[in-house]
Structure formats: structure tokens, C-alpha cells
């Protein structure tokens, strides 16, 4: 089958929609049919998608070079990891260990890019073909879970062509190009027909229609609603009955009953209409609560969360550049397949990078921020901090999904020599800092900190071990929890350590893995002030802190 010019143009647009995940089911079927029938279409397709792969490769290379110029100089081993992380990380875990990352620095040169010629060609920008089938944009979403029935799952910010949105749970805001905005609340089934019209088959919708979009129409099971410049809510029940609430302005409902009677109602602000499954309309009272009022709240809380994330990014930079920061894992900006946890402390070498074994990347305190989830027997991050520290401050954001019968390790060391230290939550919910002193294990325990109400939530934990003041202090969510006198005079170390895991030893007869997630971990080689700990908690807290100034027991 020889492709026509129109088909070639159509193919390009389909490819473009495909890589941006913007294709409707109908368009996917069309693309599939073209690829099945035409070898030429497949050639075009493979060239196009291969270009996408190459762009990904060059993006890392070109933009990586720019970062070098701007003073962020990744080491050669970091560059290798950046380009080849899936292979190298797995190779490291399965075969020869973390040292591979440092051993094969020269390997990248085998796949370098051919130098480019400088011959200019003229790219005819005037003859650019653009498409404009987009009719709406997905502008906000909170906790959206797409229906299992649908393969169309646009990302936030995606432009939408005529398509069907099937949401199982959560809230999504769609802005139509003609100006109307609708908020959909799952479970909902909504079809976008064009830039000013949709079909609500089931679920809740709230629409705000400015004057410029007057005429915005929603088709319903037994009729259609035509907006005359207003704000209204719709709820289509599974049986086909529909509630219409008008908050401002006027809308026109036109429908037909099962006995072919025409139904027309003009609904004014403050009025509500119920259309039964047979198409008959009855006036009802407006609900006392704002329809989908939760949507505003949810979107506001999302914006709040984004602001908090931005504030934390500034703090994170400060922590990474601090002179006393020995090790800092922010868990941010790491590829979802990364198996090396980057130490962000600028004063340190990369040998404090952690090797991720088993753990999965998951969402952290904010949408878009990474964290590592620990669950299976061998999940852990291996690290090696040889330095002996007379004073140390450990801080971490952790989320414990369940308290096991034994303990929940945060950081533990394999060593059993004097000074070897571990940090964990015991089965009673106490924060424990353990230090080997000769053949003794000194345990510094807090009061009970992890009760039921803290399980499944992000909690900030900090412990200071300070030989200067001979004191160990524990903090939970920024507040001091207990202080204890240090026995002995031994600096601590974390050689051969593991984050989120404790290997069996004389005290614990089995391997123990944290049942939860970690999304920030920092070790300072000094004793930090209580106000510093409090600040790290307040800025890093993913939700609003109640009564942040008053004294409060955590």
C-alpha cells in the first residue's frame, strides 16, 4: 500500500500524539490499522520513534554539558551512571558490586557521537505543518485513578483532542479551549466532543462558563444542558437519573421522555432540577452544601503542597552545601530506575553514594518527589561512612507502614567493633540509638513515639549523639523527645552500613527490613541545635503544622 500525502501528514500527527500520550482510542485504532497494512507506514513510524530515542540520548548529553558549564560538574562515573544506569546498576548488584561504577570510567568513549559537519541547510520554517485538533487541556488533578477499563490516561498538562475520560477516583480539572472549565469527580465517565461540548454519562461535574464560552453544552442520558453563561453542577447516577444545580446565571435543559414528550426547562441561579431515568423533570431543592466544594479545597491544598515543596528545595540546597553535612540523600531528581543513591553533600566525595538493593522508587512527601520504599527481605541501601564522629546528628523523613514484632531499622551497621552505631525504631515505637562499647551495647531510647496515629504518615526523626555535652537527644517531628547521658567516651562510626535494613547478628537472629519508606536522610558531623531540627521539620513537613509556635508534645 503506497501512502498518499494526506496519509503521511496524518501519520506524523498520529506519531506526535502517540509520543505525547494524547491519542484517543479511535486514533490509536487508526494508527494500528495503518501500521498493519503498510510497510511504508512502519518505516515512517520506526524512523519517528527512533528519533525520539535519539532525542532522549542527546538531551542527556547536551543538557548535561550545559550543566557542566554552569558549574555542576558530574564526575565521569556519574555520567556513565546517568547514561547507562539500568545496565550498570543491575550489573553492579548482580555481578561485581558497586565498584563497577568506578572501575569502568573509560567505557563511555566507545559510543561517542560522530563529529557533526558545519554545512548549513535551510530549514523551511514557513512550510511548517501544524495541527490543531486539541480542544481542551487537563490542567489540575488530585488523586486521580483512571478506570481500569480505559487505556487513555493523559498526564497532567496534556492537551486533549476529542476523547473519553474515565476516572475511577479523584478530581480532574479540564479547561476547554473556548473558555469553560469543568471539574470532574470520580467515578465519572465524560466525553469531550469539541472545544465547547461534552457528554456526561455518569458521575459528577461542576462547570464554570464565562460569557465567551456561552453555549457550552453537556449532553446527558435524557437530554442536553445548554449554558447561557453561568456556573452549574451535574450528577448523573448509574441508573441514568440526573441532578442539575445552577449556582449563577441561567441554563437551558432540553430533553425527551421515554414516551417522546419534549421537556424544556430554563433553570436559574439557586434552582435545581431532577430528571428521572425516564426523562421526566421535577424541581427539587438546592443542596445546602456547595456541590463539589471539596474540589476547591483539594486544589488549594495541592497548591499549598507545591509551595511547601518549593520551600523544601531551598532548604535541601542549604543542607547539601553546609560545611557540617557529611552525607545527604535528598532522594530527589533521581531517575525512577536509578540504583545509585547520590550523596548530595557538596563537601564529600562520591564514595558516600549509596548502592540501592531491591528497594523500589516511590512518591515521597510531595507529588513528583522521590522516596525509596523498603519491603522485601533484602531491600536496603548500602553505604560506607568510615569517619569516626565524636558528635553526630542524624535526621530522616520516614514513613512506617507497620511496626513489626522486632524493630524498624533506619540505619544499621554490620560492624560489632567499639563505636559501631545503629538507629532504629523498636517494637514499642521508641526511637533507639545503639552504640557498641567493647562487648556492651549501649541503648539510648526515647519515649514511645510511634503509636498507631503515626503509622502510614511521614514523620521527621532526629537523634544527636554529642560527646561534648555527653548527651544523646531524640527528636520527633521537630520536638525534643528525650535526653540521656552518654556512657563511655567513644566516637561513633557507620562503616559498612545499611539504610532501612538490619542484617542478622548476635542480638537479632534474622534479617530485618524497614516496612516503609525513606524520603530524606542526612548525617551531620556536628551536634545541631534544637532550633535547626525544628526548622528542618517545619520546612520539610508535607502538610500544615498545627500550632507551630506553641510547645507541643509530638
Amino acid at each position, binding site marked *: 500500500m503506497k501512502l498518499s500525502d494526506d496519509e503521511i501528514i496524518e501519520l506524523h500527527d498520529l506519531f506526535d500524539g502517540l509520543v505525547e500520550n494524547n491519542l484517543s482510542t479511535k486514533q490509536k485504532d487508526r494508527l494500528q490499522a495503518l501500521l498493519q497494512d503498510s510497510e511504508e507506514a512502519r518505516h515512517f513510524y520506526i*524512523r519517528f520513534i527512533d*528519533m525520539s530515542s535519539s532525542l532522549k540520548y542527546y538531551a542527556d548529553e547536551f543538557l548535561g554539558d550545559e550543566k557542566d558549564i554552569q558549574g555542576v560538574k558530574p564526575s565521569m562515573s556519574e555520567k556513565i551512571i546517568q547514561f547507562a544506569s539500568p*545496565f550498570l546498576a543491575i550489573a553492579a548488584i548482580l555481578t*561485581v558490586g558497586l565498584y563497577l561504577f568506578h572501575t569502568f570510567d573509560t567505557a563511555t568513549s566507545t559510543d561517542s557521537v560522530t563529529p557533526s559537519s558545519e554545512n548549513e*541547510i535551510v530549514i523551511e520554517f514557513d512550510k511548517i505543518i*501544524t495541527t490543531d485538533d486539541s480542544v481542551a487541556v487537563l490542567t489540575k488533578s488530585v488523586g486521580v485513578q483512571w478506570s481500569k477499563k480505559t*487505556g487513555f490516561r493523559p498526564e497532567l498538562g*496534556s492537551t486533549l483532542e476529542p476523547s473519553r475520560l474515565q476516572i475511577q477516583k479523584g478530581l480532574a480539572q479540564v479547561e476547554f479551549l473556548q473558555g469553560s472549565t469543568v471539574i470532574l469527580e470520580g467515578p465519572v465517565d465524560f466525553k469531550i466532543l469539541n472545544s465547547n461540548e461534552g457528554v456526561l454519562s455518569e458521575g459528577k461535574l461542576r462547570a464554570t462558563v464565562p460569557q465567551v464560552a456561552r453555549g457550552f453544552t453537556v449532553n446527558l442520558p435524557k437530554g442536553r444542558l445548554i449554558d447561557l453563561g453561568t456556573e452549574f453542577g451535574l450528577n448523573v447516577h448509574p441508573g441514568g437519573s440526573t441532578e442539575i444545580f445552577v449556582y449563577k446565571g441561567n441554563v437551558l435543559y432540553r430533553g425527551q421522555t421515554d414516551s417522546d414528550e419534549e421537556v424544556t426547562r430554563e433553570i436559574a441561579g439557586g434552582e435545581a432540577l431532577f430528571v428521572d431515568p425516564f426523562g421526566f423533570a421535577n424541581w427539587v431543592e438546592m443542596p445546602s452544601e456547595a456541590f463539589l466544594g471539596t474540589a476547591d479545597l483539594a486544589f488549594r491544598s495541592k497548591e499549598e503542597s507545591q509551595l511547601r515543596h518549593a520551600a523544601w528545595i531551598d532548604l535541601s540546597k542549604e543542607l547539601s552545601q553546609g560545611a557540617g553535612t557529611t552525607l545527604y540523600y535528598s532522594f530527589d531528581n533521581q*531517575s*525512577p530506575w536509578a540504583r545509585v543513591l547520590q550523596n548530595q553533600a557538596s563537601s564529600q566525595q562520591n564514595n558516600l553514594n549509596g548502592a540501592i538493593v531491591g528497594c523500589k522508587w516511590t512518591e515521597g512527601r510531595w507529588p513528583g518527589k522521590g522516596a525509596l520504599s523498603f519491603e522485601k527481605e533484602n531491600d536496603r541501601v548500602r553505604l560506607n561512612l568510615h569517619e569516626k564522629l565524636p558528635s553526630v546528628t542524624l535526621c530522616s523523613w520516614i514513613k512506617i507502614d507497620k511496626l513489626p514484632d522486632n524493630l524498624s531499622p533506619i540505619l544499621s551497621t554490620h560492624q560489632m567493633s567499639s563505636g559501631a552505631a545503629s538507629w532504629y525504631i523498636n517494637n514499642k515505637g521508641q526511637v533507639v540509638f545503639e552504640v557498641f562499647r567493647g562487648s556492651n551495647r549501649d541503648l539510648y531510647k526515647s519515649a514511645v513515639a510511634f503509636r498507631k496515629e503515626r503509622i502510614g504518615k511521614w514523620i521527621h526523626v532526629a537523634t544527636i549523639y554529642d560527646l561534648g555535652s555527653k548527651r544523646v537527644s531524640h527528636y520527633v517531628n521537630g520536638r525534643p523527645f528525650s535526653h540521656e547521658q552518654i556512657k563511655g567516651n567513644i566516637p561513633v562510626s557507620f562503616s559498612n552500613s545499611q539504610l532501612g535494613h538490619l542484617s542478622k547478628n548476635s542480638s537479632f537472629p534474622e534479617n530485618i527490613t524497614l516496612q516503609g519508606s525513606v524520603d530524606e536522610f542526612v548525617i551531620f558531623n556536628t551536634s545541631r541545635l534544637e532550633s535547626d531540627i525544628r526548622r528542618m521539620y517545619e520546612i520539610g513537613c508535607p502538610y500544615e503544622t498545627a500550632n507551630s509556635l506553641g510547645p507541643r508534645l509530638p
Partner: protein
Amino acid sequence: MTSASDNRSAELVQLMMKYQRRLFAYIHTLVPSRSDADDILQETSLTICEKFKDFEIGTNFYSWACQIAYWKVRAARKKFAMSKVVFNQEVMDVISQTHGKMEEELDARHYALSRCLKKLNERDRRMVLTRYESGKNVSAAALACGRTVQGAYKALNRIRKVLFDCVTFELSMEEAK
């Protein structure tokens, strides 16, 4: 001291370094979502490491790796249905066969693309490269270039067409030499 197993590991890493991009490109043609293709590359890499002891050095590593990738994509189809794989099995098979015949051309296109990228104006180049940077999306590209998200979609559509045509033109010029 270098043991035989260390040498084998070094060979594995070198082969992987050499073919990673091409293997990703192959998976990407079967799985158009970049993040899904990344996931499958990860799974493929794991199997390659596990089975590398069976690979005979000197034979075609890329073909061997593509076979593993192909079965990983098939497995993903069963496991994830439509979420990870867009095409039906029949279409996937014909794409895979066609891909096998285009290796040389695709390599040439890859290098031509680097030249074409340099011919874009600064704003367009930044836009398209930001879009394709790991972990970035159209919103990030829009932000980096001071455009609206809607404008960024249109611009990317245009830039991809320009780059595609430029690469085709470059190759035709090479052939004419």
C-alpha cells in the same frame, strides 16, 4: 588481581554501554510510552545480566539482547494489557521485523540528528531537549522556554517535523555524494 568472572563482567558492561541506546530504541518502537519503555529496558537489563553466562562472546550481542527485549514486551502485554503496550501482537511483530531491516539506516539517522539539532535556533533546541531530558515532560519544557503548555505542544509538534525532515534531507545529501 583480575579473576575470570571480573573479565566477564567487564565484557558485559562494555557491551551494554555500546548497545544500550539501540536497545532502548528497539523497545521504544514496540512500546511508545517512554517511561514504559524505560521500565522494560530495566527488566531486559536484569535478564541480560542473569543470562549473560549463556551468551557466546563474538556472536551478535545486539540481536541476542533484542530477542530478550521482545519477550519482555510480550510479557508486559500479558501483565499490563493496554497500559504499557499500545499495539496488538500482530502489529508488534511486523514492526519488530521491519525494525530488524533498518539498523544501518537508523544509526545514520541518529548521527544526522545531532547535526540537525545544532541547526535549530536556541529556543527550539532547548525546548525539544528539555522535553526529552530524563524525568521531564512538556510542562517542564514550557517552563524552561517561557511558553504556555499549549504553546509548547504546538512548538514540539513543529520542531519534531522539522527535525525529521532535516534528518531525511541530510541522509539524501550523503547518498548523493
